């Protein structure tokens, strides 16, 4: 029997996928919401194993042949195919759950109400999205004469109208789009969860037994997995837009960095309403009427500050460095080291690999035929690190979190952040090199420090600096 590997999704699709697998009796032990395991064994088929990935990584992992089968939503499949139409990817079955659509949307407070209006203007449209490849094709097909795409890690809905003209985003239905104060201009595709296969695997391996479980599930009368609500923590985004050009725009982080940021802000004179963990408003209200605040992903902040979309932002030095590795002459600069949020960006390999530093790895690599596989969230830091260390042949695998699961099967080297190193050790990984000691910092744009807003920016910087000094 052929050994078969399937990639299963974390996050949004996990509950429904787990339910489907359970009902069809193709269960995997530990495939639950709170699981800390990555590698799973099938309870039924001894030749079948699974690994849990971020949904976005699954089409890529299946297309490159690391996994024979995978389950993910159609939007991520199409995002890959938009850029790489010849990918070795087969859509095997529509699993029908987790229904939703990809929308091109504009703000209800903006001036756009139909896609036709976009193609007639000379204006350079700003499109914010987690799907940059699909966004580019959409822009071309709409015959936009000029456009710029801002790829983001999340929170696309919060950018329009002040910081982007259009957002391309996933939502369950139009009402969900409207609830974000957006108008859907065009539905690009409807997306359900799909079972996908690597083309080569499909042509050479016998996976019929596994497919039969899925077919059986699709034929069942009672499909409880269709009723499972996809658990997305939506935050509210109700506001009146602010086009006042003299306001100072501040970006604050969501996710892991939010609690320590909040704790820090409590020590400053900037008081916010709606920046609490349990009730996040993407546009918290500030006590200083000259400051406008939006909550976005920390990964996206340096680019947004470079663009002039935001004047100041609280992010990590890791993301600032990643940005500067990609755009060395960027106007973004660190203004205040805030001290909290300490992590190390490290180069990591498997315990089983007999190397202790990069030059040893390089020597091992020189005798190999295939290039070094490097997985990282910090794609630009990783690229520069490898270039600087004269690693001649390597392949970068961009990941969207949980990168430690990639080693050793799907990558040889990992560039990852860690607080204590405990998680890495638990996964049988070792730190080979420390690239950066990172803390949270306030970043700004050198150009806006010279603008008409410079006094206001300087006073906000001072508020932060004072809080750090009093600590």
């Amino acid at each position, binding site marked *: 029997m052929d050994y078969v590997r399937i990639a299963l999704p974390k996050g949004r699709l996990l509950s429904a996928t787990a339910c489907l697998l359970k009902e069809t009796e193709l269960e995997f032990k530990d495939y639950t919401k709170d699981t800390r395991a990555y590698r799973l064994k099938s309870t039924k088929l001894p030749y079948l194993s699974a690994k849990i990935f971020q949904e976005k990584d699954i089409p890529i992992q299946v297309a490159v042949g690391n996994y024979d089968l995978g389950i993910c939503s159609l939007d991520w499949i199409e995002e890959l195919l938009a850029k790489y*139409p*010849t990918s070795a990817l087969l859509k095997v079955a529509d699993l029908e759950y987790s229904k939703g659509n990809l929308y091109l949307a504009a703000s209800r407070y903006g001036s756009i109400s139909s896609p036709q209006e976009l193609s007639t203007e000379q204006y350079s449209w700003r499109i914010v999205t987690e799907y940059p490849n699909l966004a580019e*094709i959409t822009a071309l097909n709409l*015959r936009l*004469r000029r456009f*710029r795409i801002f790829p983001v890690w999340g929170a696309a809905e919060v950018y329009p109208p002040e910081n982007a003209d259009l957002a391309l985003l996933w939502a369950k239905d139009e009402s969900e789009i409207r609830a974000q104060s957006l108008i859907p201009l065009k539905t690009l595709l409807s997306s359900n969860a799909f079972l996908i296969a690597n083309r080569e695997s499909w042509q050479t391996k016998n996976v019929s037994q596994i497919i039969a479980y899925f077919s059986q599930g699709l034929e069942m009368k009672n499909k409880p997995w269709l009723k499972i609500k996809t658990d997305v923590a939506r935050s509210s985004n109700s506001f009146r837009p602010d086009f006042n050009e003299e306001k100072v725009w501040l970006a604050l982080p969501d996710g892991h960095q939010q609690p320590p940021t909040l704790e820090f802000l409590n020590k400053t004179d900037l008081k916010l309403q709606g920046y609490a963990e349990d009730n996040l408003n993407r546009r918290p209200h500030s006590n200083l009427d000259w400051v406008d605040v939006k909550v976005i992903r920390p990964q996206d902040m340096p680019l947004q500050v470079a*663009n002039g979309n935001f004047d100041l932002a609280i992010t990590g030095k890791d993301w600032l460095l990643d940005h500067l590795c990609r*755009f*060395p002459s960027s106007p973004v600069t660190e203004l205040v080291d805030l001290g909290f949020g300490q992590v190390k960006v490290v180069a990591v390999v498997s315990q089983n690999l007999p190397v202790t530093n990069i030059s040893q790895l390089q020597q091992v690599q020189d005798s190999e035929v295939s290039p070094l596989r490097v997985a990282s969230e910090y794609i630009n830091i990783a690229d520069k690190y490898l270039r600087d260390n004269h690693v001649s042949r390597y392949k970068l695998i961009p990941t969207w979190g949980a990168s430690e699961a990639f080693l050793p099967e799907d990558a040889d080297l990992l560039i990852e952040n860690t607080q204590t190193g405990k998680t890495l050790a638990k996964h049988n990984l070792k730190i080979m090199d420390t690239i950066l000691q990172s803390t949270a910092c306030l970043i700004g744009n050198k150009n806006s420090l010279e603008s008409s807003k410079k006094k206001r920016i300087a006073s906000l910087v001072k508020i932060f600096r004072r809080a750090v000094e009093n600590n």
Partner: protein
Amino acid sequence: MTRQKCKGARDLLPKDTEGFRYIEDIFRRSCLSWGYQEVRTPTLEYLYLFTAAGTLTPNMLSKVYSFLDWDGWSGERVVLRPDGTIPVARLYIENLSRQEIARLFYVTNVFVFEDTGKENRERWQYGVELVGSDKPASDVELIVLAIEILRNLGINDAQIHLSHTGVLKALLNELKLNHGEETMLLDQIFDGNWQALTEVKPINSEVSRLISLFLDLRGKTSGFLENLKALPQIPVALKPALDNFSEIASLLDALSCKYQIDITSTRGFEYYTGLCFQFSVKGERVGSGGRYDNLIPLIGGKNKPACGFALYVDPLANFIQPQAKRKTGQEILVRCDKTTPDSIKTSFQLAQSLRQAGYVTELDFSGRQSDERWIIAIQEKTPLLLVIDQARNQKKEVSSIADAIKMVGN
């Protein structure tokens, strides 16, 4: 050995390069003699130059090599030049727009992704652009120039196919589609899918008969176009384009230039507004061109009519007879086995004198075998030089560089 060349990329070996240069020299000489001036544009351009509506189709744009530059944080993408005409139009707007007429030509590579990797993703073309004239005679000038270049290359059997985007667009207009549908249909047609046109169901059958009259027939003289013009069901809107087409065709008739009228021969570029022409040799396309009166205003210039064409070097190189390619001159090998500064100095001096006398001269310090007829070896003692004539299998010692050159000359 593992192959390290990029998929879809190509090395030009000395023999290939020689062929390319031969074509290029003839192309340049012909263009210069018609009063055209050579320009070069950068390999990198902003992507938006090419996305402006009415320039390249979305399908073509999905195959360009675009990326963010090292300072591209604003999201503005740059692209490896996917087309030769648009950059030259930009160059004209930014530098030469005060010139009433600009006759420009260029030798350039363009980059277009091709997914099998079996065909070149980097293609070479020789282009000619005539900016500032809307006269039918200018369209004709370009066709005649292209044919002259092909003849100078020894290609006498090139076929010309004529089409007219103005006629085509006016015909599509009769289908009364909405703007979006019409653009989409036009995109498909420019990508070569004429089937799409027959799949549209027009409101009345008169229109569909008219379309098939235009699409199914091939004409060989301006008479064909006059016949079409005389049809009772020809809509008024079609007349100006047909008049223009017919006028150009009759000028070509007067010059005894043979062509075929084939509306379906239009391919590729949405920026064409009037006449379109294709050159083919033994069924293979070797060049194309046309009139693009709207391009310059579309990318931000003044209202300037223009037309141009490009010859595709890669297929052309296959049709050039090997003997017609440039012959390299007679080569002489200067051989020096000694490593003393004096001997090496002599070998350089000898080679220099031979080159001045018009010989291609190669230096050899490793004593290798050579196919060249003449080898001149540097000797340590006088007589200084040994002249070897490999063709006659003769050797003779001489004592001065002048004597050696004299011997080779005989």
